[in-house]
């Protein structure tokens, strides 16, 4: 299968001088469910945000779906972004707006400025948004304000929003870190389903190895801005785990 993402010698040095990515090389094949592991501060968020230029990388090459992300500007960058869905730990919904409006906002990369200024979406888009809400099992909550939904429901709205983009790739930055174990598993199940049925490539940072084993097809571990492990979930034994998380770490199970 062909590569959908190719990172070459990617560096990120923050203004304060923190060297968060120290030359990351990574190739991701279409259809992979790639789990990013690593301690807090190891650079997972920085890596994911560099790939759609929410953060400006300092140097290196990024190619996504045969587009050069580094040189893209303005409209072209937005076109690249609209095929990349993004899921966040804090859901990042507009809490005052309805679930449906939140889902519709995933279409912004496609609609004209005029339509977004007047909040007048195409009927067709509303129907698509409803069907996406249905996919995550929330069609009856379409009119509810996001703030009135539970954490798991909010994250599912965020998944529906990403679906609205017709994404080729989804970046999920610790999508289940603020959820209880049962809800976390259900959210991961929706991501897994998108990966299998829609052939959406998924890069997802996680802290739980059990979830990584259950859903991941490949695991990449970061430590201090370097890739220290790249393999299948099965290959992570106790020693590898300690390499990634430090000598004192104990594996915490979550089922």
């Amino acid at each position, binding site marked *: 299968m062909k590569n959908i993402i190719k990172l070459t010698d990617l560096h990120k040095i923050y203004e304060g001088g923190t060297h968060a990515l120290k030359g990351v090389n990574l190739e991701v094949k279409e259809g992979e469910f790639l789990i990013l592991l690593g301690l807090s501060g190891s650079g997972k968020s920085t890596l994911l945000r560099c790939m759609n230029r929410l953060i400006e990388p300092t140097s290196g090459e990024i190619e996504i779906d045969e587009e050069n992300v580094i040189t893209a500007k303005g409209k072209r960058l937005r076109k690249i972004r*609209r095929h990349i*869905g993004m899921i*966040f730990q804090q*859901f990042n919904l507009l809490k*005052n*707006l309805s679930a449906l409006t939140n889902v519709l*906002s995933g279409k*912004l990369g*496609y609609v004209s400025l005029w339509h977004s200024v007047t909040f007048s979406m195409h009927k067709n888009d509303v129907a698509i948004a409803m069907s996406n809400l249905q996919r995550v099992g929330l069609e009856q909550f379409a009119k509810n304000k996001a703030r009135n939904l539970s954490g798991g429901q909010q994250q599912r709205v965020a998944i529906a929003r990403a679906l609205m983009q017709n994404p080729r790739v989804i970046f999920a930055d610790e999508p289940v870190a603020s959820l209880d174990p049962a809800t976390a598993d259900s959210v991961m199940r929706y991501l897994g389903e998108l990966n299998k049925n829609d052939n959406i490539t998924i890069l997802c940072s996680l802290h739980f190895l059990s979830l990584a084993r259950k859903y991941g097809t490949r695991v990449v571990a970061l430590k201090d801005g370097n890739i220290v492990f790249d393999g299948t979930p099965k290959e992570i034994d106790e020693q590898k785990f300690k390499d990634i998380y430090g000598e004192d770490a104990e594996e915490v199970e979550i089922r």
Partner: protein
Amino acid sequence: MKKKNRTLEFIQAIATDLLFWIYIFGCLYYLMHKWTGFTAKLTFIGIAALLATIIFQLIRGSIGVKLFLSSGKPKRSVLKSLWGYLILLSLVVTFVVGLNIVEVDFYKFFTKFQNAGGIASGIFDPSVTGYSLSAESINELEKDDLPPDVINTLKGIQNRKYSTRKVFLNDLQKRLGESTLQEYKSTILKSAEKNTKLLNIALSALAETIFLALLATVFAIPFAFVLSFFAARNLMPRTWLGNIVYLVIRTIATIFRSIEAIVWAIIFSVWVGIGPFAGMLALMVHSVAALTKLYSEQIENIDTGPVEAIKATGASTLQTWIYAVIPQIVSPFLAFTIYRWDINVRMATIVGFVGGGGIGLLLLQQQQLLRWHNVGLLIWLIAFVVWVMDMVSARVREKLIGI
């Protein structure tokens, strides 16, 4: 390194003491001059201060020594706490000078209360309806060539209030007699009525005030709204252009805000003439500056998560502002805008005093005509409106943003 510090400490200590003594001797000189007419050259103060500084440095009991010198503190306890007494001295001197500058006069305060009797009786007995003859209207009648005995009779009921026209005429009839009253009835009533139309005039002036405050707020909103986005640190890019735009807007807003609305009213009443339009412009300029600050602070407080999320979908900057910023700020913006209107109604009264129209202008006129009962009515009306606005705006704020 050590040595340098020591020198610096010494200079700081001397400078502090010198300033302290110049201030003390300056104050003392002011008081002596005021009380005894004593005059001296200003260099005299300088020399005295210098001497005091040297003396207190030598005995090591000065404020400068206490604040800045890390070694060489006095051993004796009297000198150790001397700096405290010096500060006490400066406080006492400052207070006494303050009393003199502000011309505080307790004697006047307690003995001249009857001077305020007019306004006090006006407040407790505001003219709402009814008939009365003010000194002013009796003067007018005198000019209209009413006979002196009639004028004298009228002076006997000056400022007396009658609840209705009938009661008023009945009393006049008793005092003047049927035939005299008939002769001058229309003239007297004309003067008297002038004075009783006040409630109508007051209400329309009040409406003027409320509406000018409202318009000032409404006109200020679009300007403040647009400016606030450029005055929000988190939205402006950290390029040199972004920084300059941010700084310029913030600085101008701060300057305009620190110029009181009353000053703007003076400027605009010269510019466009005395009246509600000048008042509106004054309040508007002040409101734009104030709202820009409040709005942009709200924008700076928004949750940046949704902004990031919307940006990541491929939305343009403007779309991101519309979908991720505006939904987060509408309620606080509304709350602050209503709060601003509330403030503007209050300020509109003051602004009226200097030519801004509305009830403030009317109040000023009535006060200058010494019509205390009318002044009383106006004060009650203003108090009532301010109270209502305050309550409404507090309610709305509570509903919208829970403050």
